[in-house]
Structure formats: C-alpha cells, structure tokens
C-alpha cells in the first residue's frame, strides 16, 4: 500500500519533470555531455524549483551521481534531526521522479533514489543506465 503510493508519487514527479525541463531548457545552449546536464540540474533546475542550489555533487565518473542538499526545502519544517525519519521517503518520492523525468527528456535513462540520515539534509543518488 505504502509502496504503491510512493510509486504513484514518483510517476507524477516524472511527468512533471519532463514538462519542467522542456520549459527550462528552451533558451539554454545545448549540453556538451552528461556532467554538463547534471550540473544544470544541480544549479539552474534546483534553483528554479527549490530556490537554492544543490550543495554537493559527487560522481564516480561511471554513471553514479550523488546530489546532496543540506537543507532540503521540503524537509526543513519537519524536524531538525532524527525525528520522523521513517516518514521522509513519502516526501522525497515526488522529487526523485522530478529528477528522473527531467533527465529522461534530456536523453538520459536513470534510476533515482533518495536517502535521509539526518533531517533536513538528504542525498539523491542518480544511477545512469547505459543502454
């Protein structure tokens, strides 16, 4: 039951992400490579949606990116530590879908998951699927 809801939220985020990316990339120059696209997501996309940038982007240069947001806007009002940790996944599902939808419209298939160890910081992990 919980799983189905989370999947539904993620799918909604996916569709919204596709539309948003179309609007945001209307006037930007073409992206040179995957890293360029991820940087765009971290800076422009995140700023437009959440009014701040991603604080940290790490990659292993083999298709895995970790986006870290130390003060994720959707979690700041929830708690400032470990309280309500188990409910965080519901609020992150839509955003995971958002990232996945945006990337898919730019031609990148991926799997996005999120983890929270201590609110309001959270990490989004993007696994690029090479076809």
């Amino acid at each position, binding site marked *: 039951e919980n799983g189905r809801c989370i999947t539904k939220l993620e799918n909604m985020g996916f569709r919204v992400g596709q*539309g948003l990316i*179309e*609007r945001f990339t*209307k006037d*930007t120059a*073409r992206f*040179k490579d995957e890293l360029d696209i991820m940087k765009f997501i971290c800076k422009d996309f995140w700023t437009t949606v959440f009014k701040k940038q991603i604080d940290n982007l790490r990659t292993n240069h083999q298709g895995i990116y970790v986006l870290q947001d130390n003060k994720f806007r959707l979690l700041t009002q929830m708690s400032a530590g470990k309280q309500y940790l188990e409910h965080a996944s519901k609020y992150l599902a839509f955003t995971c879908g958002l990232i996945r939808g945006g990337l898919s419209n730019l031609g990148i298939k991926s799997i996005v998951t999120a983890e929270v160890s201590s609110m309001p910081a959270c990490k989004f992990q993007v696994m690029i699927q090479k076809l």
Partner: protein
Amino acid sequence: MAVSTIILFLQNYPLYIRSVPTENELKFHYMVHTSLDVVDEKISAMGKALVDQRELYLGLLYPTEDYKVYGYVTNSKVKFVMVVDSSNTALRDNEIRSMFRKLHNSYTDVMCNPFYNPGDRIQSRAFDGMVTSMMIQVC
C-alpha cells in the same frame, strides 16, 4: 513564398505533420526524412565550438524547383523540420528563426499539458491554430 510542410520528430518518428495540401505531398515527406540524416550528422559534429541550439540547414535544392529545408533541434532531442518553397524571395533568416521559436514555445506548452503523454501524436487545437497562422502568414 510558402511554407509547404512542417514536421516534428522525436527519435525519428513523427510527432506532428502538417502540410499545405498541394500535389506531391509524398515528395515533401520523403525530403524531410532524408534531411533527418543531415540533422543527426550536424548534431554529432557540433560537439565543441558552437554550443547553440538552433541550426539552419539549407539544402536539397532540386534541379527543377527550389526548396529549402530548415532544421531545429531542442535540448530534449525533438527535431523540427520545415520545408519552404522559395519561389519568390527567400525568407529572411530571422523570420525562419522566429518561426522556430514560436514552434518551440507551443511545443513546450503541449508538453506541460498533463493530459498529453510524451511520444504521442500532438493533437492540440492550440498547436494546430498556431501552425496554421504561421503557414498562412508566410504565404
């Protein structure tokens, strides 16, 4: 001066086809399909220097008639191809660009419609209206 055909492609299958219903429509469709190859070539060759969205493709001049085929690619890999018949004078570069921008804007609106599934044929009346007005204004 007439825009004969406008086609939008996503990964090489058409999302939207619109032609002025004249004779030899098939010929236009064929030309557009062949020009897709050139579009792909340009995208792959363009990696470094010109980091710009739009590209103008002038070519496919037939021995008998004059046609120009223009291409435009968005960041989401949707290709717009337009066939223009240049019997009188050539449309200025700026006009072609502004037409492509209008197309892109309308396409963005279609994308944001929650009832539209990306990859389907575009059946939006607003989009049709915009394309009609563009084709009429040019003639």
